[in-house]
């Protein structure tokens, strides 16, 4: 019965921070760190104990058709671990980073609100509740993107908010359509009832695809991402790029299209097409960037393309690859955004042409950025290599050599533009001698932790560990009837 605490703890922390913090932010930091640690412990505990079962929590001691239920299965627990893990490092990073913008408790309150929203989306088993938590997370995200109070940040935040509200409208319309057909909002019940009405299923599915495709920055719906992710403060960029687009976008797509709609081939085909477009176009766009964080943002679109491609192929291996890539991308993209943030804090610029030769003044940042670069470019033995490899293997095995070639080309382009980052950003000619620059230990620790994780998570692919960690998640995704029976239990 740990489920409601995933939502209670961060929400309570947010309120407490708003309540007890004065001018200085020490209390806020303490509360936030304690809350995140508790969440990480809970999430790990949940992931270890859940195995192949499903826990259902019914709010207010009511029974399912009348209540909002929370569902914890391997997939949710996996996402919760990612959220709290990356969230904790982001918090460590921001404690030292955010001070050069302003010292305010508001940041931590909004941060905990962001965590609340994402945890809620992942934990809930109710369609409308999902919408509500999504809006909470988005609201916090809009505010956090504009936290630095520069012109570009307001612009990015405004554009993000407008496009986000379009997609929220679409989600609401989709929910209305689904509700009109099933008179139910519990996802498991919808999954049971909706196949009787294929027309509604397809049209609602199409609307959901557009709406959550926007959240996951699928290619024609991606335009908000490079603005928002490059303008936000670095730890927020890493939360948005590493976690938010995956929980609000990819996770929901997986849950809806696999567990609720039962993976109709038409939508899988669309996933593949949109994924391929994202991979290629975003890679080319990333190649043209000189703004470090904007390049990383476009790279996120491209990597999301890999995940969508894996989901679209839809075989067991493809989903394994996609799930693995979600984890890996969260780790290395968060790491790269921390690197970018550190460099921005020290040099005051994000322009790659004005950086260079950072080995001397930022040794840890340079070394960890190398890990991140090699991981995202898919170089062994870093984790990105294995997830991309699995996706490509699955594409070939499922008889899609064209898509496999697209993934290969995308992987190559990724290498090219990240080589640009390394060459101009960290090893270029410009000689920068700046004395007295101090980055906090928290920032360095956060980067080192993630750099170690880029190596360590590649162990997940070993057969013994894989069966324990990744296979239950894949089993949850592949098994629609299992989801229905597990959630509804005796109420069938």
């Amino acid at each position, binding site marked *: *019965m740990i489920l*409601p605490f995933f939502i*209670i703890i961060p*929400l*309570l922390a*947010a*309120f*407490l921070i*708003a*309540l007890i913090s004065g001018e200085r932010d020490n209390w806020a930091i303490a509360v936030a760190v304690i809350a995140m640690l508790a969440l990480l412990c809970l999430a790990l505990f949940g992931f270890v104990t859940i195995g192949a079962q499903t826990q259902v*929590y*019914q*709010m*207010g*001691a*009511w029974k399912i058709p009348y209540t909002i239920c929370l569902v914890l299965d391997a997939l949710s627990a996996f996402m919760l671990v990612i959220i709290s893990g990356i969230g904790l490092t982001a918090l460590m990073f921001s404690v030292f980073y955010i001070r050069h913008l302003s010292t305010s408790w508001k940041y931590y309150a909004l941060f905990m609100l962001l965590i609340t929203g994402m945890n809620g989306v992942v934990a809930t088993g109710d369609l409308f509740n999902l919408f509500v938590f999504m809006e909470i997370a988005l609201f916090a995200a809009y505010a956090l993107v504009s936290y630095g109070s*520069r*012109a570009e940040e307001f612009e990015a935040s405004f554009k993000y908010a407008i496009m986000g509200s379009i997609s929220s409208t679409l989600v609401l319309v989709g929910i209305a359509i689904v509700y009109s057909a099933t008179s139910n909002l519990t996802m498991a019940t919808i999954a049971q009832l909706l196949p009787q009405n294929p027309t509604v299923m397809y049209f609602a599915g199409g609307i959901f695809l557009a709406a959550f495709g926007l959240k996951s920055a699928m290619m024609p719906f991606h335009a908000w991402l490079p603005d928002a992710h490059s303008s936000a403060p670095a730890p927020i960029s890493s939360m948005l790029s590493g976690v938010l687009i995956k929980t609000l976008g990819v996770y929901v797509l997986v849950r809806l299209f696999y567990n609720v709609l039962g993976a109709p081939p038409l939508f899988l085909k669309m996933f593949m097409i949109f994924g391929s477009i994202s991979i290629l176009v975003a890679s080319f766009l990333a190649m043209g960037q000189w703004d470090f964080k904007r390049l990383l943002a476009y790279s996120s679109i491209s990597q999301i393309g890999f995940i969508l491609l894996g989901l679209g192929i839809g075989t067991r291996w493809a989903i394994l690859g996609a799930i693995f890539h979600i984890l890996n991308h969260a780790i290395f993209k968060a790491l790269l955004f921390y690197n970018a943030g550190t460099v921005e804090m020290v040099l005051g610029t994000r322009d790659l042409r004005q950086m260079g030769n950072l080995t001397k003044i930022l040794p840890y940042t340079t070394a960890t950025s190398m890990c991140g670069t090699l991981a995202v470019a898919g170089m062994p033995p870093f984790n990105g290599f294995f997830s991309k490899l699995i996706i490509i293997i699955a594409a070939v095995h499922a008889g899609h050599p064209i898509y496999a070639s697209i993934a290969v080309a995308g992987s190559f382009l990724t290498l090219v533009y990240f080589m640009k980052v390394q060459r101009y950003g960290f090893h270029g000619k410009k000689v920068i001698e700046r004395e007295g620059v101090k980055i906090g230990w928290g920032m360095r620790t956060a980067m080192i932790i993630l750099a170690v994780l880029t190596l360590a998570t590649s162990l997940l692919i070993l057969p013994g560990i894989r069966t324990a960690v990744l296979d239950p998640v894949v089993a949850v995704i592949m098994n629609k009837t299992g989801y229905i029976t597990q959630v509804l239990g005796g109420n069938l």
Partner: protein
Amino acid sequence: MKQQPGLTLIAKTVTRISVWLIVLYGFYIIFHGHLTPGGGFAGGVVIALAFLNVMLAYGHETVTRWLNISFMHDLEPSAGALFLTMGILGIALGGGFLANVVHRGTLFNVFSSGNILVLNIIIGVKVAMGLFVVVWSLAIFRFFEGGDK
């Protein structure tokens, strides 16, 4: 004659009388949320509107002087924390988040719904304070000179 902030004397006078009625109406809606349409949110909005009325009539400087904004600001998160506390009480006593822990009472009375009345009040406070503070902070906003280059 020096320009007073806010609206005309007539508006101020009417506001001075009507604001209490509006607040009362808001409380009515909050307390009858489980019996008639309405509830914490609607009542909270009404109460917030009462404050906004005052702000419109007297100008926001006066309101800032009269009211303890930072206290209202603190009320909002404490209402949220209280709501969560009720939820946790539900876990502790009733077997689920937000489960009923207060005596149910008799049907069609004001005290007939256990938790719901308490929660309505909390929500009402939260919404009233939240909405008022939002509009107030939009109202006190002043431009800095010159755009961002």
